[in-house]
């Protein structure tokens, strides 16, 4: 336990000591929220779909978790490059615990950023449908942060350089995000897009969060939660497997 704690604590210290990163990491989702929420809101409403900002906020929260969670994996590459990974990997502690401590730190960081975006969205006019469901929304964010940092850690364990990581990142992250129903409702899109979105696990997180915050869901909260749970287990297992194989 104390090993996991001290490694988690190290991540938090790093995070708090580089405040510019905090601003940088929430800047992008806020930009999306304002440009799209305000910019496309009028069009969306004219089409008879209701308030676009409301619709968009859960998607942007997931985006924050996605980008900052997966991007956190780069921390592992930094540790490889600057040598600290070796210090952790030769220690008489199982690699699973080493990974867990670090990844929980990363998950906490991306959760904090998602909560910041969530908080700011209220200032932009976001309103919650049913406050009793807010704990569920937090639980979904928590599960998602663990899932996505694990995913980032797995990718970082497989590549050796920053370019490789960035490449995989761009190749995966943007499609995952744009094809997740974060930005548009699945009911009105062409069939092809609907099919693609429904095999994207992230779609179910967006859908579940939308249900918790707005009471709207495409698939039903039961299916959403089940997919989220399975995805989390798969991503954590993937990360443990890859991290165990690192040679430094």
């Amino acid at each position: 336990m104390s090993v996991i704690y001290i490694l988690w604590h190290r991540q938090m210290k790093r995070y708090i000591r580089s405040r510019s990163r905090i601003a940088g990491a929430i800047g992008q989702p806020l930009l999306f929220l304002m440009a799209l929420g305000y910019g496309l809101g009028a069009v969306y409403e004219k089409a008879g779909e209701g308030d676009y900002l409301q619709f968009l906020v859960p998607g942007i929260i997931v985006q924050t978790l996605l980008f900052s969670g997966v991007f956190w994996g780069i921390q592992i590459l930094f540790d490889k490059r600057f040598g600290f990974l070796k210090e952790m990997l030769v220690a008489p502690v199982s690699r699973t615990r080493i990974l867990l401590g670090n990844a929980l730190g990363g998950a906490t960081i991306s959760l904090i950023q998602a909560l910041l975006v969530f908080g700011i969205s209220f200032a932009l006019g976001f309103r919650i449908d049913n406050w009793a469901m807010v704990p569920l929304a937090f639980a979904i964010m928590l599960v998602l942060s663990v899932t996505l940092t694990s995913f980032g850690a797995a990718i970082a364990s497989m590549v050796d350089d920053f370019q490789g990581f960035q490449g995989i990142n761009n190749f995966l992250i943007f499609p995952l995000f744009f094809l997740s129903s974060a930005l548009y409702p699945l009911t009105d899109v062409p069939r092809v897009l609907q099919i693609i979105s429904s095999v994207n696990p992230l779609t179910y997180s967006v859908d579940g969060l939308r249900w918790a915050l707005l009471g709207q869901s495409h698939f039903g909260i039961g299916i959403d939660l089940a997919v989220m749970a399975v995805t989390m287990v798969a991503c954590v297992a993937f990360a443990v497997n890859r991290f165990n194989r690192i040679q430094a």
Partner: protein
Amino acid sequence: MSKTIIEAKDVVKRFGKITAVDGISFKVKKGEIFAFLGPNGAGKSTTISMLTTMLRPTSGKLMLNGHDVTKDQNSARKSFGIVFQDPAVEEELTAYENMRIHAVLYAVPKPEQSDSIEKLLKLVDLWERRDSLVRTYSGGMRRRLEIARGLMHHPKILFLDEPTLGLDTQTRNLLWDYVRKLSENEGMTIFFTTHYLDEAEAVAGKIAIIDHGKIVASGTTAQLAKKTGTKSLEDAYLQLTGSTVRDEASKGNNGLNVRSANRNSRLR
């Protein structure tokens, strides 16, 4: 004292076309101070990486304190401590925080942690600077921090990969005195590499010389000198390894190795 604690048998490591370690075998006895010498790129660090579970050998067998290193990594890791050739500190934390993480990783009992950290940081003269971020340290200070860290827990085997690179004479002497004491008082086995042959001559009980991934000779200083018909370790070493300068493979240690390369060329 005669029990074997480190054993390598026909160990090979290839990186693509490069054969970094080419079928080496050796034994180190418990409590021995063992020097692993060789020119840059000879395969010393690669051997240490394999012994310390960081790299898997292409073939061959490695035993550490009775554990098969490739099969039983977790038990093997409980047996050793290491000071790496390349920096392995967290620069965004302070020296004290680095020491604390190490203490927890190596399960140093909580009540002993603070005393031990203080004693060792004072030993390497970093106590006054304990709360500065390591990022602000000079190369020599980082090295001293890594050495203090490596000495904190008392493992059965201590690996030191060019520990004195870039250090001043005072710190070098301090390190070797401390290491000698660990070996005498606690029966700790020391496995180290260095380019300073005087150090090896002064502290090592046994020496192995590796070149191009192969062990070319091993024994005590006297045995090596006798074998080569030379008078000192330095002469024996030069005769065994030739006198061409090798490139250093190591990455990211701030050019410290340029110094060792220069030193090698001066040895000509």
